[in-house]
């Protein structure tokens, strides 16, 4: 017997997540995560043991929770559903309640981690029952946030508006509860008010095209997230001209205006005009810089920066994959090796620049050990050479 639609859609989604999960949580990443989590906990507990109760700790805990209590709604609808499912809308309660349950559990890990860290912070200066109240309120806010985000999809209220309001309400609710438990009522009123407002705005019937577009955008966001770690076939690329980068996109000079340099010409443009990639790399640089400033420990700074280069090299390799499978390189009278040479030249330059930047940050933090910074460009070069070869190998196997 054929599985019900909700079951098969959820199973398909789990299969995709399991497939990409293998690539994200590979052994290198797990080692890094374990080290990073250990260091973070160690430094956090050490810091907390010396801290006095403070409003700032409460603010950090409330802020952390307000950003993590944002469950995503995934209706798992497809483009063709707009043609076939609307006549059955009234009989789809089971489908949508399954999607509700699936969506609620899907993103639960983030608020769980957030809550664990927040409770550690609240141990300084708050009795157990206040912490329990904080946890209970977080659970309630999570469920309400889910219902509000879900209902907003079928309303004219934009997701950005809902998210902004939710963050503010979460923050105010949790912080006021910590200031005085009686203020819990304020949080309940605020979240209840938002819920009823979105309810009132809801369309009578399902706005199928809007919900399907919403699902498509959620799926793209997931693929974009995964593409930070591995190549994702389904992630559609978007490009935009950034005029401020045009000075980096000069045409090669006469002697270099040939097939030897054509792919470097292409890769530069692909990278600098990619909608996401330059910003992802910038974000990664910022995150890893903040981490080493936070940790402020020599060996861990080196490990974190080596890992940063590893993630960035992985990111860059998607540029090669995107170009290698297109039609024109198969038609032009240019050997495929030129794509590889063009990519390796371009990516070595890019990785060198990034490694140099990380080296500067490292030297600023640990000026006495400036000579260690030499390891970053070298490591970037080795990683880039190794991963490029892997990408070529995979491409060769696929084209065979």
């Amino acid at each position, binding site marked *: 017997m054929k599985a019900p639609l909700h079951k098969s859609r959820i199973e398909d989604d789990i299969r995709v997540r399991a497939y990409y999960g293998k690539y994200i949580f590979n052994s290198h990443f797990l080692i890094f995560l374990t080290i990073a989590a250990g260091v973070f906990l160690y430094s956090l507990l050490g810091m907390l043991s010396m801290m006095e109760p403070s409003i700032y700790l409460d603010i950090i805990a409330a802020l952390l929770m307000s950003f993590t209590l944002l469950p995503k709604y995934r209706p798992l609808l497809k483009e063709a559903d707009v043609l076939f499912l609307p006549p059955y809308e009234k009989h789809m309660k089971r489908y949508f309640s399954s999607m509700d349950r699936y969506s609620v559990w899907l993103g639960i890990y983030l608020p769980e981690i957030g809550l664990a860290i927040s409770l550690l912070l609240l141990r300084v200066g708050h009795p157990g029952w206040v912490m329990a109240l904080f946890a209970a309120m977080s659970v309630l806010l999570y469920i309400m946030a889910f219902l509000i985000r879900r209902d907003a999809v079928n309303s004219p209220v934009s997701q950005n508006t809902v998210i902004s309001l939710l963050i503010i309400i979460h923050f105010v609710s949790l912080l006021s509860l910590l200031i005085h438990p009686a203020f819990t009522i304020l949080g309940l009123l605020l979240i209840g008010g938002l819920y009823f407002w979105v309810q009132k705005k809801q369309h009578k019937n399902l706005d199928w095209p809007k919900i399907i577009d919403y699902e498509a955008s959620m799926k793209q966001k997931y693929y974009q997230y995964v593409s930070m770690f591995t190549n994702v076939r389904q992630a559609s*690329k978007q490009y935009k001209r950034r005029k401020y980068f045009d000075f980096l996109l000069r045409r090669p000079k006469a002697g270099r*205006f040939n*097939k030897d*340099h054509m792919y470097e010409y292409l890769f530069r443009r692909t990278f600098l005009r990619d909608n996401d990639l330059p910003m992802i790399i910038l974000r990664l640089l910022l995150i890893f810089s903040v981490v080493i400033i936070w940790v402020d420990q020599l060996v861990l700074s080196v490990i974190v920066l080596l890992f940063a280069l590893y993630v960035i090299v992985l990111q860059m390799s998607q540029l090669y994959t995107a170009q290698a499978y*297109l039609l*024109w390189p*198969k*038609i*032009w009278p240019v*050997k495929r090796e030129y794509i590889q040479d063009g990519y390796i030249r371009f990516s070595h330059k890019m990785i060198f620049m990034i490694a140099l930047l990380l080296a500067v940050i490292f030297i600023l933090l640990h000026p006495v050990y400036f000579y260690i910074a030499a390891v970053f460009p070298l490591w970037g070069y080795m990683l880039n050479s190794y991963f490029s070869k892997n990408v070529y190998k995979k491409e060769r196997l696929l084209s065979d």
Partner: protein
Amino acid sequence: MVLNIEKLTGGYSKTAVIHDISFNIKAGEIVGLIGLNGAGKSTTIKHILGLLNPQAGRIEVNGIEIGEDTEEYRRALAYIPESPILYEELTLNEHIDMTIMAYGLEEGMAWERAEQLLKVFRLDEKGEMFPTHFSKGMKQKVMLICAFIVEPDLYIIDEPFLGLDPLGIESLIELMVSERTEGRSILMSTHILSTAERYCDRYVILDDGRLLVSGTIDELRDGLGMPGASLDELYLSLTGGAGSNESTPS
């Protein structure tokens, strides 16, 4: 002989889609590759381009097979696909730059020719724009410009008139005729038989992955005993008014 195909059998997997096809194109000829949807036109083109490997038979361009010297083989070809395939991240001028670099053209002369073509296709003020924001017809013109600056020995054009406006069609026909005069050859697959009849020197008619007949219009008329018949009438007579494989992918 610019193109010589001998007993070509091939397809997308182990199952053959085209069978035992042979034909050739001489220098300065426009040859129409004609057939219904699923007749095998696109598969034949993909084999010529080297995108598919023949299961049997051989394909030579200027006397060499793709395996002998891939670059030399490809340098003799320019391809215009049925649906425009462009780089989303490149401007129109950058597409031209890439083509010049790929084919090793002399930059100054190639750009001179490109500018003429940009004027012909009324795109001369759109060089800094991204073609992905163009209409389908304009995108097709970008493909045509990139192919025609190359001036190869053989143009392979899949459905050349699809999506073009009447002015674009007229400009393309003029270009094709002028290239023929220069001794270059064109293989074009098309459904528009009336236009093909006016400009093609010979025809290769495929049906169900097999070569039905090839030759000039007079040779086809003689062969079928239909003096004065149009290409449309000859074609309908050959295929019995309908293809035997309308649903087979080509």
